[in-house]
């Protein structure tokens, strides 16, 4: 079957395993012909999947909660890749920021589509600061390293998997990382999504897609350097070394202490929904169960 896969944002080192699955023929073995296209943020990826421009996607679970609650977008999760919260706030060492408390009264910038500001409320609560004491600015993704390095903002939001790239950009200055998972937050990050109609009509295709992707992940985590090269060969502008570093970071996030790689549990999902509900006023209450379809990942 032909499948178009839309990423959460761009094609970066953190997506290497999709290309591993592609290049090593795992998709082909599963009878799939997968085309990988760039997304414009999780919200956009979710809409594209809902509209059928893409059949499968890679998007943030929190964004999906919002999409289902506010816009009734008929999309569900099939599998969770980032079992841990990937969100983090990065500052320069020179800014004097060392912990969440130092963020008080500071300006933090991130893209509008990022989940970092979306879930900052939850982070602030866990870290014991008032979320109103930090001001957020919207900035274009491309300008974020510049914003940070030139001090236009005191810190920026970024996924932990982006650390290698960011470090490269602001070198020689050193980065301070305030990851959401480090204050004990536990909710799902990004996962594989599909539309409800697709799930109903072609569950088998989706199942083999998830399985092949997980196979790619395993292979990539086993050999991050190899994954980096594969991605670099497919997408020349992605540096192999950066891709290797990002793949390692993904491997860290993909650890699932309670189950198999890629697995989804109602408890995990409830944490996610509650975290989002705590940070936003949702138009509609979302149940953890409606967020995903079970049975697409190995138990």
């Amino acid at each position, binding site marked *: 079957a032909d499948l178009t896969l839309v990423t959460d944002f761009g094609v970066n080192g953190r997506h290497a395993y999709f290309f591993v699955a592609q290049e090593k023929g795992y998709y082909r073995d599963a009878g799939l012909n997968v085309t990988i296209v760039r997304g414009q943020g999780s*919200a956009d990826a979710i*809409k594209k999947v809902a509209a059928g421009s893409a059949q499968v996607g890679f998007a943030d679970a929190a964004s999906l909660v919002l999409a289902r*609650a506010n816009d*009734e*977008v008929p999309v569900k999760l099939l599998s969770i890749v980032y079992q841990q919260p990937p969100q983090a706030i990065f500052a320069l060492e020179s800014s004097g920021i060392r912990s969440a408390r130092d963020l008080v009264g500071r300006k933090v910038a991130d893209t*509008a*589509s990022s989940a970092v500001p979306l879930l900052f409320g939850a982070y602030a609560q866990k870290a014991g600061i008032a979320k109103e004491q930090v001001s957020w600015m919207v*900035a274009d993704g491309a300008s974020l390293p510049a914003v940070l390095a030139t001090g236009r903002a005191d810190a920026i939001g970024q996924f932990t998997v982006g650390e290698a790239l960011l470090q490269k950009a602001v070198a020689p200055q050193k980065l301070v990382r305030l990851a959401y998972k480090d204050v004990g937050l536990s909710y799902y990050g990004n996962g594989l999504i599909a539309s409800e109609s697709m799930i109903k009509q072609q569950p088998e295709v989706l199942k083999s897609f998830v399985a092949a992707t997980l196979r790619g992940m395993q292979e990539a985590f086993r050999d991050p350097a190899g994954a980096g090269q594969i991605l670099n060969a497919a997408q020349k502008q992605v540096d192999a070394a950066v891709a290797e570093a990002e793949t390692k970071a993904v491997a860290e996030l993909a650890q699932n202490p309670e189950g198999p790689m890629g697995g989804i549990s109602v408890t995990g999902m409830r944490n996610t929904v509650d975290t989002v509900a705590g940070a936003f006023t949702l138009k509609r209450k979302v149940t953890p169960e409606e967020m995903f379809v079970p049975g697409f990942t190995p138990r």
Partner: protein
Amino acid sequence: MKKSTLHPAVVRTGLTALSVVAMLAVWELAVRSLQLPQWILPSPASIVQVANEWRQDLLVHSWVTLYETLVGFAAAVALALPLAMLIAFTPLLKHTIYPALLVLQSVPKVAIAPLITLWAGFGVLPKIIVVFLVCFFPIIVSATAGLESASRGRMDLMRSLRASRWQTFWRLRLPQAMPQIMVGCKVGITFAVIGAVIGEFVGSEQGLGFLILTATAQSNTPLAFSALVALTVISIVLYYLVERAEKLLVRWSD
């Protein structure tokens, strides 16, 4: 004069209003009949409802965007006219200025976002710069074409009077170029509004662009569309204001 007893301006405004209403009706009908989900295209009704809830914020954000638009547009006009004048004075200058303008024009403003934030930070300045960059080109191209178009006979008259370049500019070139300058301004003002939003996309804490981005990210599509509607209203109003200015400034025909 003959059939209608209505003032033509009333007819025109009526037609404009009518076509806007017609568009809204088609939109509402399309959404209902095709049962388009709201995350694809919310219905005008739902947008109005959300816009009403958010009217305070919409006003504040609209004001910011309007301000950026007007300042950037004014700056563009204020710079384009003297530059066009300079080009009209020394035509060879065109071939050194235009390449630079083309470079500025052809670079997508979003692509040089890091540069803009680097130099101008957040705040209104970078948006004004983007507005300026976006609407400068149409204005200067039209203005230059207009200023260059003085007819042989009229130029001969001014030459025979040994009018200075300034005098020729003020008394012949500028009035003659006015209709074309206004065309440039009409095109420019619509791009100016977009420019403000693009500027806000690059980095901002307020403005309709900010609202559109954050609403989209939070899957509040009706809110994003109500911001788009506010944007469109600003654009249409500004366009017709420029057209009004044109009517006041160009009161002659050949």
